[in-house]
């Protein structure tokens, strides 16, 4: 297999494995106490609009709870494709951030279509040319938006008074990396010998010779490979970890009485050992959370009469 194909496969493997590890780690966390935050996109639409909850219902504990994901998905789509939160709270950042995010989405779409068309080969009887043309337009748009977005964000992060104190070396590095990826992507798209997507199709099919590509294409693939390896170790994983921050924490409002696994989770948690050292905790190697919760933290000396 050609080295470039190998490098990209290795990078994609690290990407998938790294992200999988993060996901598994998050999923294996102990069941936590509730930390709801409203509005929660569940229940009747009118109630969602003003941020109400089932606690407003008479004898809420006697009524079934909505567990459907429709409202959550609708909310998330607005967040993912429109960056609703940034739009409402920080407009100067939003325009650049939106451009960068759409650059990434379109890039992924263009790459996926190109690789899929390449993989289908002769089996794709119709639509090959329109699909490749669409991928080309998407790739061109993505690199343009991505480059504008990442450079705009770099400038905003550097000069905006609200941001500059929080712009670390890592932020500069990440944005510069993205700007370089989209910049080389643009250059590679206009390579007179072989365009970026053609090269990608060849690499995906393992049909390329290393020397055949321009510096722009080689550089672009190298940067993409690095990005894929780097991504799982950055905060950019927020892309999918939002599932936990939103769905798993602030929207996780299911009362334990409606949760079949609740008693087992609770028993597991209460059996955990407490080693906090403050005197009032009365922790220690043999102290469980159940013991601590049933004590008063003052050697059982109560003055209650």
């Amino acid at each position, binding site marked *: 297999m050609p080295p470039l194909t190998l490098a990209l496969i290795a990078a994609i493997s690290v990407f998938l494995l790294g992200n999988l590890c993060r996901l598994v780690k*998050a999923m294996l*966390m*102990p*069941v*936590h*106490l*509730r*930390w*709801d*935050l409203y*509005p929660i996109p569940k229940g009747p639409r009118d109630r969602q609009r*003003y*941020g*109400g909850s089932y*606690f*407003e219902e*008479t004898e809420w504990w006697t009524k079934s709870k909505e567990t459907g994901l429709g409202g959550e998905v609708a909310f998330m789509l607005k967040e993912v494709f429109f*960056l609703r939160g940034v739009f409402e*709270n*920080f407009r100067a*950042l939003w325009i650049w951030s939106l451009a960068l995010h759409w650059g990434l989405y379109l890039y992924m779409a263009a790459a996926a279509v190109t690789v899929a068309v390449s993989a289908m080969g002769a089996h794709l009887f119709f639509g090959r040319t329109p699909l490749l043309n669409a991928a080309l337009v998407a790739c061109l748009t993505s690199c343009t938006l991505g480059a504008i977005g990442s450079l705009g964000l770099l400038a905003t992060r550097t000069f905006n008074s609200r941001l500059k*104190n*929080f*712009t*670390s*070396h*890592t932020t500069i590095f990440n944005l510069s990396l993205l700007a370089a990826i989209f910049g080389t992507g643009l250059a590679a798209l206009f390579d007179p010998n072989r365009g970026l997507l053609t090269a990608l199709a060849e690499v995906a099919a393992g049909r390329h010779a290393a020397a055949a590509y321009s510096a722009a294409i080689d550089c672009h693939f190298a940067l993409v490979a690095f990005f894929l390896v780097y991504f799982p170790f950055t*905060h950019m*994983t*927020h892309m999918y970890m939002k599932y*936990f*921050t*939103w769905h*798993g*924490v*602030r929207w996780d*409002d299911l009362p*334990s*009485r409606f949760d079949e696994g*609740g*008693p087992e989770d*609770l028993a597991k*948690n209460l059996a955990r*050992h407490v*080693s*906090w*050292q*403050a*005197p*009032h*905790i009365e*922790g220690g190697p043999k102290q469980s959370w159940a013991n601590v*919760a049933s*004590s*008063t*933290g*003052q050697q059982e000396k*109560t*003055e*209650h009469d």
Partner: protein
Amino acid sequence: MIKIEDIARPAERLTEVDAERLAPLPPPYDGADALPPRKRLTEKARANCDSSLDGFLAVGMARPQTEAEERQLVERFLAGLDRLLSPDDNWTFLQQLTLSLDHCARCQTCVEACPIYAASGREEVYRPTFRSEVFRRIVKKYTKRGGKLLAKLKGEDIEVNATTILRLLESSYRCTLCRRCAQACPMGVDNALLTREIRKLFSMELGIAPKELHEQGSALQLRVGSSTGLKPRVVKDTIEFLDEEMREQTGLNIHTPWDKPGADVLLIHNAGEINAWPENPMAFAIILEAAGISWTMSSDLAGYDSVNYGLWYDDAQFARVAVRQAQAAKKLGVKRIVLGECGHAHKASMVTADRLLSKEFDIPRESSMTFLRDIVLSGRLKLDPTRNNFPVTLHDPCNMVRMMGIVKPQRDILKAICPQFREMTPHGAENYCCGGGSGFAIMSSFNFEDWRFLVAGRTKLKQILEAFADCPEPETKKYLCAPCSNCKGQFRDLFHYYGVWKKSGILYGGLVELIVNAMSDLQTPYIKWEFH
């Protein structure tokens, strides 16, 4: 501009609260000369404690005197960090903590949502992200493999020394945990949660917390039954005396039942009401009796005090109080617990304790807002809204509204009984904190009250004044309905500080007082229009 890494650097003050830079208030509250003189720290406090964050002290932890003491402090702090990241020691909030540590994009989208940051004139140390970023960098540097080297390479190096620790501790008490910033965060990161976890580290590892929350708060509650210090015999005597007074005042036969087995409702008040605003528990008694509810109060440990200060700083104390309250209800065999007008008690009992109580102790817990809404709208009380024909606005307690979604019931009541009800802007789940959240309302050590009034409560005060902008004159008596004991404590002190009763004629009080004031059976108005 103050840099994040400045938290560790020696300086007499990182920042000062400059009255001229604070967000402006409308007349007659504008101008720094309208403010009372600031309280000065005592010589002893200045000598022993580190007030170099902003010149204020909320906790006032003693500064280490020797290098050995400082080393020990640093070691214990770092041990606490490890425990915070341990599934055994911190199963309660580990997931929320790690998500908020790992996924902040430092985009600052959240900062303008913070009423404290806005009120302060955008002081860097009060940014909701400032403390979080300090903490995040410390966690990464001291708990991750290769953290020290990476911190240097990334330019995110913060040294953990006594100055850092003492400033971080004080800084964790410059946030009311209102979670407006979390609402604004596009990643779902929660700065308030990080703040609470910092407080928890100090309390659960080093035994350091504001004395009002711990010694005089949860520890006292677990020792004698209530954070007010009221023992059962005293509280029963007090309520009996108040019943008698109510009978005389209203002509109604009020008798608060205690420890009645099998009652439909166990009513648990914030016991602070009994001392500070007895008209509130008495109004509850009048309503419940008039509506023919089978109810009781409990004299068991923590059974007559709904507060649970552990919610703000300590999981062990939180669990202990939650368990005691559930045990009291279980013992009486009541059908449900109804929580009085106390926001954090609502959240502690109905939300946070939900995954802490086993099935046998999971007695249904209901908000007094829905409970009262059902009584008022059922027509069981004879109500005359014209008795409440004065301007009324509603404060939304953060714990009850933003963190529980109880928004509409209290509005349904007010719309039914207060013809001049008007909303604040913003309101509901987007409300502003009163400035007394997360325990601040009861914290008055050192010079902390000045900060509480100058900065923490400023945005709310402005909002209240704006709600009554059509009738600013003190002659028109106005009512701020605050169905939360801690919020009322903050309003009492905040209004006193700014002279709001005299200058604007705004009285604060609960929801039940308005309901009773509208009851046609009463000969005289229940609301006395006396500021206390």
